[in-house]
């Protein structure tokens, strides 16, 4: 109790992050790069300018949402490895609805988001239904649904009628569906003049800065409210903690599992929508998983399954991804070091006992 760092989840997370960065530094040193140089390039690449910060947030946005998705499922006793597939389905839906259903902006954006959330929800609830009805473990079913989503995506994207000629992607979504800030105006003569006069905003407008981050924060608050303040969250958590007691108390555990996976799926679907309407503007054929869903698992773990924790962990991961992308061109150190650092952090977080032991031995040595 004397040392709050040792026992709190936050303390363990912070120590794990430091250890992860330390292991990353060791590896950099081992393969012949100066870790101080690499990390300062990275830091400068994150905080060096407003533009970099804007990019960091753009990188963080989808993984905050998939992180929330995984964390929500965790809180209710389910392991959603299917965030990836739900993301794909959400992104595909956004690309299609964003192009084929013209509407005024004020309607189009919410419509696209709702369609993607619905698609992700349905995709997630398939796994929930299989578990409730047939007892299929959601880990297995969501992994398989990831692949089904990937090939479903390719089936649609590569369809001659949908594919944009000369590409392996859908048509770019209409301007009315974009959540990029002032995307049309910033390229107009008026906007250009404004940008010249205000270098700060110019820096931001050089990136596809978008409303996705605000949506992600809103989603985090919503998840927090659902989990802690609503009857829905109460019952879902009860099922997650002890489904026998929940069942005995009259809670329908089967429909709880389905609801929980539907909400988790909706969050990942939203991640896909935000990425398409805010950044890529299209869905492309996928040769492999993009990894946003899997990164969400790391985000959820680092964020201790806490919605606010997920926002912070997502920003951290986004920063490493973006800042880390600069070390290869600058000093030649491999980008993969970022994955190693993230993996190490998750590993340490999964071993809270190890960290406690280390702290205890340190104390003893001090004595």
């Amino acid at each position, binding site marked *: 109790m004397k040392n709050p760092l040792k026992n709190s989840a936050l303390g363990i997370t912070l120590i794990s992050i430091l250890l992860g960065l330390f292991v990353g530094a060791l590896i950099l040193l081992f393969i012949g790069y100066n870790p101080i140089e690499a990390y300062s390039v990275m830091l400068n690449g994150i905080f060096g300018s407003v533009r970099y910060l804007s990019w960091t947030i753009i990188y963080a946005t989808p993984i905050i949402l998939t992180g929330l998705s995984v964390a929500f499922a965790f809180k209710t006793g389910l392991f959603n490895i299917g965030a990836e597939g739900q993301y794909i389905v959400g992104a595909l839906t956004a690309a299609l609805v964003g192009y084929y259903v013209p509407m005024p902006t004020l309607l189009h954006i919410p419509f696209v988001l709702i369609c993607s959330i619905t698609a992700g929800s349905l995709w997630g609830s398939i796994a929930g239904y299989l578990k409730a009805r047939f007892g299929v473990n959601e880990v297995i079913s969501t992994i398989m649904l990831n692949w089904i989503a990937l090939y479903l995506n390719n089936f649609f994207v590569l369809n001659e009628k949908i594919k944009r000629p000369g590409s392996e992607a859908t048509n770019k979504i209409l301007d009315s569906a974009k959540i990029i800030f002032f995307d049309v105006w910033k390229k107009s003569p008026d906007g250009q003049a404004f940008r010249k006069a205000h270098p700060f905003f110019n820096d931001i407008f050089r990136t596809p800065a978008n409303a996705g981050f605000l949506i992600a924060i809103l989603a985090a608050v919503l998840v927090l409210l659902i989990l802690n303040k609503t009857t829905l969250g109460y019952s879902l958590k009860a099922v997650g903690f002890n489904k026998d*007691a929940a069942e005995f108390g009259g*809670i329908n555990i089967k429909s709880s599992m389905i609801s929980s996976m539907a909400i988790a799926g909706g969050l990942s679907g939203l991640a896909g929508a935000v990425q398409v309407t805010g950044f890529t503007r299209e869905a492309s054929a996928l040769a492999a998983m993009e990894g946003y869903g899997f990164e969400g698992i790391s985000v959820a773990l680092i964020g201790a399954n806490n919605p606010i924790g997920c926002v912070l962990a997502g920003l951290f991961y986004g920063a490493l991804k973006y800042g880390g992308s600069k070390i290869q061109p600058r000093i030649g150190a491999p980008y993969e070091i970022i994955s190693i650092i993230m993996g190490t952090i998750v590993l340490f977080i999964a071993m809270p006992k190890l960290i406690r032991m280390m702290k205890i031995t340190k104390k003893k040595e001090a004595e």
Partner: protein
Amino acid sequence: MNNYDFDQIAVEMKGITQKFGSLVANDNIDLTVHKGEVHALLGENGAGKTTLVNSLYGLYHPTSGDIFINGEKVVMDTPNVAIGHGIGMVHQHFMLIKPFTVVENIILGKETHKHGVLDMERATKEVMELSERYGLTIDPTACIQDITVGMQQRVEILKTLYRGADILILDEPTAVLTPQEILDLIKIINNLTDQGKTIIIITHKLKEIKDVADFCTIIRRGKKIDTVKVADVSESDLASMMVGREVSFKVDKEESEPGDIVLEVNDLHVKDNRDIPAVEGLSLKVRRGEILGIAGVDGNGQNELVDALTGIRKAESGEVLVNGNNILGLNPRGILDHKVSTIPQDRQKRGLVLEYSIAENIIIENYKKAPFSRKGWLNFPAIREYARKLVKEFDVRPDDENYISGSLSGGNQQKVIIAREISNNPDLLIAVQPTRGLDVGAIEYVHKALVAQRDKGKAVLLISLELDEVINVSDRIGVIYEGKIVGEVKAEGADENEIGLMMAGGSNS
């Protein structure tokens, strides 16, 4: 009994104080146990008995105080240190791997091997030697999931002996046993002390202390009250020392005045998990203002009957009427809505969400109703206020409705469940083993609560493996055997032997 050697002190704990935050679980407790003695630790739920032995076993680290084993001062950092000093512990909830065999469980962590290959033959031989030496009858090749609770406990005891334990700590060993199994355990304990083992037994069953223990240390609210020679005191002396007041063992109640039929079960058939008929043509009736007790040996269909009545398990056929409405086939929610409340047998599995606070557990059946929630939003002030009232009324300790249920002692967990179920104001209250693992003070409390329900004109169905309890509390007794009610007697003046015979399948008619 009487195998102890006054000159050799096996365990000495001096001035043990254990604080958890502001809670003082053990307050300067001394404990001396001689070699070959059976020493009982007696105390109410939450008095600090388990905390004390957990310090001895290295699971907790006392805030202050010293531990001496055979005269040598030992710092119990981890259970491994304790095991190294010949201490073995059998927990109340067994720590066995269910799909593994008896021998596999016993040797786990200390496997015999020949060039790195598991030597099962030698292991089995060693285990059987131990088993014969101490009279711990087991089937070495059976899987844990297929053997009785009594045998599982013997496996736990063998596990500690296999690791060379000389001092055995048994945490509430009889809580889960049938009367016959308790007799067997007492024999085993005597065998063990015959051969020089020292036993510390945590219990709150006074009869067993009288039967088996040499000395008894009484702990109340974290403080040691006294250590007494068991032969010199009576059960009621022990009870009043433990609770701090006089306790009555008899349940005071008026003659029942049965009213309309609330529960009527006709020709019920239910299958168990293995798809084998467990309840076969069971019929019973419970009226308003009476307690029907179901006596029977464990495994005669009681669990399946309760599961069917509460909607957890589907029945094959039959009829269950509550106030004339058939509730068979409804889910648990629907049955609750018919004003049926149940105190489940396993409070940690079915009764509580251990991660939730007391308040959150109190509302689990009613969280969707006003004032606990409105339009899907929980109303925490109302929930807490309601829970605080119940915590006070039912004397849950600590009296903090935000306390996490998993940290409560067993008896207080049970109080939370009873508070919840009774506050539902049900027409039918089903109580399954409601005093399992509780101390006399709490048992008295539960029994009074059941009788109070009856006196308020509720129907009460009591299902218990403790024959004393069934006879004391009930108005009528039905005996269940192989899934049927094989006989019914009035509780008033019931003959224990006659009921016992029916429970064993002997016919009295």
